[in-house]
């Protein structure tokens, strides 16, 4: 199996627990790193060792790469798993690990940097023959250039921060006038959030679906896909429900999309697991959006339909083992749905930190929870407290199981989005699979 003896997990919450679980199964020791705010968290208790790396603010703990490198050296970890978010897509962190002789479980620093630059990533994929959303190829140098491009491709357009992601740093613009206003404010926000105020713009697609393809590549040149995930159910441009396969794609469209994802990953010599994100319009035309060079929050739906442990694949690929193509089933098995449980108001999405004074979890579902009863949800990190995943022979069965799971689930003491998740499962458009990324907005208006 993997040649790693000890893996440090440079993350927190549910994904840290998820990684620990696979490491335990593979008899790999684990090291958790944690901030003062997370001292009592489950992932800290479940790891074999735990190192305090700083106070609550992320800049002083989970983003402090030298503190994490130090923890890895001090504990003798031979590899670091970055999870998602934080330092997962930080080329410098990957490089620093390599310099210290620690394996970074992910792609190379240069690939992380290439795909982290959204403009460079689009150019790369266009060169590889993959359709991208019509827009400007390079950084916008001025408001006049922005106006010219916007008029060429036609309003509405989406103004985006080159360094952005997760829906942060983007704005829909309908006219020259709006563009003038948005140009400065978006640049300012991008500058303060990402330290880079470079903007680009592209055609705005009116009824888009967000569909992504799970890929994996190894150092031996193998690149494979594990089908797609449908991620169009979003609030504030962030996903809340994902499913696999997508109810929107027929087998021909699925094969074309997955082949494009593999081609794109091959073009950059991608190693480890990654996700190619696409936007798909009403006619079924797909456009490359961006690549996430890490494990995704929603990876469990892929695991459910493929019976593959993606964290195990990450460990093996990082240990230079070849991908076992024989482990991939010829077709996806059944249907899987994931619901993200957030500590936030179900209607306003206002975050709701506080003490979880009651937690009843569903019995017949896969659970990836960060917290247990009595835990404090602090204001410092992401509001996601857990994920519920169901798997059925059909989509209808997976939905039925999710309905039951959501009914059984109780989160007391803090506001949470369980009511929203339940109402989506009951919605006829969701059940018909005919939704797009505007679904939640429309549902809440209605």
């Amino acid at each position, binding site marked *: 199996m993997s040649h790693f003896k000890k893996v440090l997990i440079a993350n927190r919450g549910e994904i840290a627990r998820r990684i620990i679980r696979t490491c335990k199964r593979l008899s790999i020791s684990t090291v958790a790193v944690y901030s003062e705010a997370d001292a009592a968290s489950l992932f800290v208790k479940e790891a074999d060792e735990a190192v305090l790396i700083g106070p*609550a603010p992320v800049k002083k703990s989970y983003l402090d790469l030298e503190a994490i490198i130090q923890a890895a050296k001090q504990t003798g970890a031979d590899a670091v798993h970055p999870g998602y978010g934080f330092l997962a897509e930080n080329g410098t962190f990957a490089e620093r690990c390599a310099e210290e002789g620690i394996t970074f479980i992910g792609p190379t620093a240069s690939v992380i940097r290439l795909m982290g630059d959204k403009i460079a990533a689009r150019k790369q994929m266009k060169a590889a023959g993959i359709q991208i959303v019509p827009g400007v190829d390079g950084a916008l140098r001025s408001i006049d250039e922005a106006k010219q491009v916007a008029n060429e491709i036609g309003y509405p357009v989406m103004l985006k921060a080159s360094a952005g992601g997760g829906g942060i740093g983007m704005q829909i613009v309908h006219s020259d006038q709006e563009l003038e206003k948005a140009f400065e404010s978006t640049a300012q926000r991008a500058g*303060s959030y990402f330290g880079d105020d470079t903007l680009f713009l592209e055609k705005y697609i009116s009824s888009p679906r967000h569909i992504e393809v799970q890929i994996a590549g190894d150092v031996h040149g193998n690149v494979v896909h594990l089908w797609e995930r449908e991620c169009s159910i979003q609030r504030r441009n962030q996903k809340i429900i994902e499913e696999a396969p997508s109810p929107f794609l027929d087998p021909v469209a699925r094969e074309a999309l997955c082949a494009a994802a593999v081609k794109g990953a091959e073009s950059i010599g991608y190693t480890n697991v990654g996700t190619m994100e696409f936007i798909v319009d009403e006619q079924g035309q797909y456009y490359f959006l961006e690549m996430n060079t890490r494990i995704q929050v929603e990876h469990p739906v892929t695991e459910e339909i493929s019976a593959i442990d993606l964290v195990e694949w990450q460990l093996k690929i990082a240990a230079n083992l070849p991908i076992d193509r024989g482990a991939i089933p010829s077709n996806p098995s059944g249907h899987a749905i994931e619901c993200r449980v957030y500590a936030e108001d179900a209607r306003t999405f206002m*975050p709701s930190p506080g003490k979880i004074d009651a937690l009843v979890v569903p019995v017949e579902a896969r659970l990836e929870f960060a917290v247990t009863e009595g835990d404090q949800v602090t204001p410092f*990190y*992401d*509001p996601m407290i857990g994920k519920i995943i169901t798997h059925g022979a059909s989509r209808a069965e997976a939905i039925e199981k999710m309905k039951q799971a959501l009914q059984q689930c109780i989160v007391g003491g803090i506001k949470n989005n369980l009511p929203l998740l339940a109402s989506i499962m009951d919605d006829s458009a969701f059940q018909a699979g005919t939704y797009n990324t505007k679904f939640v907005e429309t549902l809440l208006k209605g």
Partner: protein
Amino acid sequence: MSEKKVILSPLPGVFYRKPSPDQPDYVQEGDMVKSGDIVGLIEVMKNFYEVKVEEDGVIDRFSVENETIVDVDQELVVLR
């Protein structure tokens, strides 16, 4: 004689006096402010919420420093 008014934190989180680290503070002590003016940000769970003035006045003092961890209803700013 105007009586003192205080602005309380609407949420628990981290209080910032400036829109980003390399930018100046929103307002200084002694500044005149109008209803709706932004005096700071609260960061909670990766979201930023603007802290706004509800009644016209003058910034008397800040009760907490930049980047302080604050609780809901904690006093942030005193107006006169």
